[in-house]
């Protein structure tokens, strides 16, 4: 039985059809990516999962219809959504505080993780005093520490420069091997999807449907120097080909 399963999800905003037909599943301990062009409706999919929006279709979690939103997912929005007025430590405890944990208990839970997330010594800093990569790690820490059943990561590294992004991808892969989170990642970076995922869903442009489901049979750790690199390259080229051959949409939007 899958952890998360979506069957024929559809969503329109007014007259704008955003999601046409999305069916997918994520198994326990699996890292799955959703890859699709900008504006396809990827973030909208997460809004359906977190209950911010409602669509047609069926959603199941551990076999039960998904109704009580927010209990299963730790959600990391597309922008880091760190609160400028809270110090990093207090930003990372936010989810725990909302769950009803006392501030002190929340802090003791989060503090030991700062080293692992490369944030040791920055507990008392404000978000504006951190680099882009550190901010993303702080947002990620805020997400995983909630200890929900599943992570929803919306383009966690989209705003970073190429070098930082590559470093963050390696770091996340390593972290995932230790923790084996069940995770659903949104990205439009093909290399990132291949590097991190067990499986990839490729979406069409809006209105989005799943055009391909791709297994990533690469061994872990995903050492970028290993012999598997060539295999990864082939996979990346194949996916890129699919993305570029999606029927072109009128007025393709970027943001």
């Amino acid at each position, binding site marked *: 039985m899958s952890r998360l399963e979506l069957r024929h999800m559809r969503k329109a905003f007014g007259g704008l059809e955003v999601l046409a037909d999305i069916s997918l599943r994520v198994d326990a301990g699996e890292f799955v990516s959703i890859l699709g062009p900008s504006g396809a409706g990827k973030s909208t999919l997460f*809004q359906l999962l*977190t*209950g*911010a929006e409602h669509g047609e279709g069926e959603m199941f979690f551990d076999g039960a219809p998904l109704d009580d*939103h*927010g*209990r299963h*997912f*730790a*959600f*990391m*929005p*597309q*922008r880091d*959504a760190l*609160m*400028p*007025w809270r110090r990093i430590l207090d930003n990372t405890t*936010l*989810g725990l505080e*909302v*769950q009803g944990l006392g501030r002190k208990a929340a802090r003791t839970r989060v503090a030991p993780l700062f080293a692992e997330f490369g944030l040791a010594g920055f507990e008392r*800093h*404000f*978000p*504006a*005093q951190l680099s882009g990569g550190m901010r993303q790690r702080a947002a990620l820490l805020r997400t995983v520490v*909630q200890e929900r059943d599943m992570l*929803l990561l919306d383009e966690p590294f989209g705003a970073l420069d190429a070098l930082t992004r590559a470093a963050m991808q390696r770091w996340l892969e390593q972290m995932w091997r230790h923790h084996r989170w069940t995770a659903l990642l949104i990205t439009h970076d093909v290399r990132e999807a291949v590097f991190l995922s067990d499986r990839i869903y490729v979406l069409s442009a809006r209105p989005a449907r799943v055009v391909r489901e791709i297994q990533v049979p690469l061994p872990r750790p995903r050492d970028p120097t290993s012999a598997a690199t060539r295999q990864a390259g082939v996979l990346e080229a194949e996916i890129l080909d699919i993305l570029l051959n999606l029927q072109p949409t009128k007025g393709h939007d970027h943001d």
Partner: protein
Amino acid sequence: MASSSFNPRQLAGFLAQAAPAVISIGLVLVAWELYANHSGIKPTVLPAPSRVFEQAMLNRDALLDNAIPTIRATLIGFACSLSAAFALSMLVDFFQPLRRALFPVFIVSQTLPLVAIAPLVVLWFGFGLTPKIMLVALVTFFPMLVALVQGYEATEVEIGQMLRAMGAGRWRVFILARLPSALPYFFAGLRISITYAVVGAIFAEYAGAAKGLGIYMLNAKNNFRPDLVLAAVGVSAALTLVLFGLTVVLQRLAMPWERAAGRRAARKGPQA
């Protein structure tokens, strides 16, 4: 890194920022002094700044005596309007339809000319503190309300979404995200309103009061003492500046993250 002490470089920077204003005010005073002394204009029409200062010193007890009711009216009126604006801003934030029902009324209240309203309010509520408080509240309430409501709405959408996903209800979202997001707007509104507040109080006293800078100005004018009118103007200006400065200090204390973030922004110029 985020030390709260006032270091010498900050002080130097502050002086450098204040210098142009000090110089221009100084130049105006010098020109005024020269004109008043050498053009043959009568001091009962335009007194020289030196005379204004001299008379202010001579009458400092009376000025102080009259400044205190003005300060009291300003602060009490402003506190009332602030509490009302805060309570109503929350209501409006939670029940959006209220906004459409109430805002037109408030906008109209802002178009009422003070000159007409002040005597009426005094007529209805007498010469005591009440009409002053009401007028101060009238001129400061709406700017504060708008600032707060706009501030709540400036909350980053992602933060709200994330909090809801964490399981936070509306009240939690308000306390954790919307309220802190409104702080910069709140302080911008505060700085504007506090100056209105002083003007409002003086206007109310002008329309009728036992004591206060407003009535003091009126009496001085009727006695052909423009020097004393100007002395009272100086006192009210000083009062406004002090209150303005207080809001700036308050903002620094309430928003320590701004300074942590603001090195780059601060160099661009004074914050709005």
